[in-house]
């Protein structure tokens, strides 16, 4: 299932989206695509070339973008709507809330350029709170793919799913973690690595960092489980509880604010089902800034090393509780 380190290619998740959209367009005649003057960046331009009659460029007008998608869904279409994550979820929040989520329409919001890895464009373009906004909406599902392979399977699953889905994609090329045999099941977290010394629940591009962290920890004799939480809503509560119980030390990792995203979702589950020490790796209540993606990941504490530190802290807390 996991691609080996040496063979790792890098592909942007938005790139994979552009490709799978064309395949899905062939499979689903009712699939239509809408964009807001960013089709070259979101990669919906590929679909527009192949299916010009089923592609609508709605211009720089995100509120109408979402509303028009709602109308298309009401008339039996499956709209995939794309723009940058910050504009999709922020600029058109009320339209998503009232025109799409409340009536539970079959609209797929597939947003690119999420997180700080947008890079040089800076904070105005870096959605760090989009998971939080979408997760709090009733009826809305939230998926964050970890790599190109998962993106294709996740988008296909989102289109097959009935109801609104938010899919979060990124700008830069990221390592391809999974082979073609990788199985994606909507709502089912994937245990990529078993271990009983601690567990890392990661999402999106932090899954790769979590795997690196676990590998380095293993070299030091610490067996840490890694779980890819690709579907943040509905959350796979069973898997979270099982591994939290097994390890008693929980780390979450996301390229997103620690408020309202994966870390919060896991904290809610721990709080209600099996209180356990938790350390959240994520953006700590600040906006992003300009820089190269990998520089920013370091500056914001979102690397394998940061995850390792979090694991060590949470293990200490657990041991302290156990009186060790």
């Amino acid at each position, binding site marked *: 299932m996991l691609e080996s380190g040496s063979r790792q290619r890098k592909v942007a998740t938005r790139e994979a989206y552009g490709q799978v959209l064309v395949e899905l367009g062939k499979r689903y005649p009712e699939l*239509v695509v809408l964009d807001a003057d960013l089709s070259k960046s979101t990669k919906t331009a590929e679909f527009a070339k192949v299916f010009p*009659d*089923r592609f*609508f460029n*709605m*211009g720089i*007008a995100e*509120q*109408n973008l*979402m*509303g*028009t*998608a*709602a*109308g*298309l*869904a*009401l*008339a*039996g*279409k499956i*709209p995939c709507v794309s723009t940058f994550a910050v504009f999709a979820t922020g600029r058109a929040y*009320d*339209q998503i*809330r*009232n*025109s799409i989520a*409340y*009536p*539970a329409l079959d609209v797929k919001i597939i947003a690119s350029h999420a997180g700080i890895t947008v890079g040089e464009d800076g904070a105005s373009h870096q959605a760090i709170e989009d998971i939080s906004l979408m997760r709090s909406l009733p009826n809305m599902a939230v998926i964050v793919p970890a790599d190109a392979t998962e993106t294709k399977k996740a988008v296909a699953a989102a289109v097959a799913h009935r109801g609104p889905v938010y899919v979060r994609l990124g700008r830069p090329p990221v390592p391809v973690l999974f082979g073609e045999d990788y199985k994606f099941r909507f709502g089912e977290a994937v245990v990529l690595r078993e271990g009983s010394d601690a567990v890392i629940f990661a999402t999106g591009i932090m899954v790769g960092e979590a795997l690196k962290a676990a590998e380095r920890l293993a070299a030091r004799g610490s067996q840490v489980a890694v779980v890819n939480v690709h579907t943040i809503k509905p959350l796979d509560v069973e898997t979270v509880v099982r591994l939290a119980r097994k390890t008693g030390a929980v780390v979450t990792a996301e390229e997103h604010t620690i408020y309202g995203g994966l870390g919060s979702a896991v904290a809610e589950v721990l709080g209600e089902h099996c209180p356990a020490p938790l350390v959240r790796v994520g953006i700590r209540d600040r906006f992003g800034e300009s820089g190269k993606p990998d520089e920013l990941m370091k500056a914001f504490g979102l690397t394998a090393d940061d995850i390792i530190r979090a694991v060590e802290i949470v293990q200490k807390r657990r041991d302290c509780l156990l009186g060790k």
Partner: protein
Amino acid sequence: MNQEVEKLIKYLEEKARCLRCHIIRMLAEAGSGHPGGSLSAVEIVTALYFHVLRLDPRNPSWPDRDRFVLSKGHAAPLLYAALAEKGFFPVEELLTLRKLGSRLQGHPDLRKVPGVEASTGSLGQGLSIGLGIALAGKIDRKNYRVYVLLGDGEIQEGQVWEAAMAAAHYRADNLTAIVDYNGLQIDGPVAEVLSPLPLAEKWRSFGWEVRESDGHNFRELLEAFSWAARVQGKPSLVIARTVKGKGVPFMENAVDWHGKAPTKEQAEEALAALKVL
């Protein structure tokens, strides 16, 4: 021929009176809600539901049906009254408006009420939804038409103009918007709060065909709707000049009657006025 038109207009006038009575009874029973903007649009909605729209109340999701989107969702009592009279659900249910467990939410919920085409209430969103339905109709080569009712205050929302621009760009001639031009919003006259005037010039410059109509005169409204159906290559707009609170003398043109329900006594007075109408 002329006699038939007379008959139709008599029928529509009677329906309009009936819808107004429902609105008053519903609001009085609910104890809250929006009479002014419900009453101003009665003739518009009556003309659509009882003459223009091709609908099948026994099959509310008939794919070829015409669509009506109540973008100014606070006029829900009017929409519910029309749907009930049309046979989408029992008339008795109207009095459950706004009560716990009722399908008749304060603002329309398309998942609850058969015949409701869009969940609205957050102003400014209905024209986009109507445009989406119209574009789907174009893709599928269906000949249904889409009608969207906007408030004259509502069109202060930027999204309305995004949708207006897009509808003209995509030549959505199966889309007709109606502005309920009653001149009032919550805080006062639209011209004083934030003037959306001049209406016709704005919409024309956005690429729409525009026509004005007396919003309480069925002859003019029917003519306007048949004109709209003939417009080709562009979306069409009917500016319907109306009176907020129309039909209930003490509510007419009174800003205060935008969003409060009549007491039982006021409702009696309103119904008495409507009976002699």
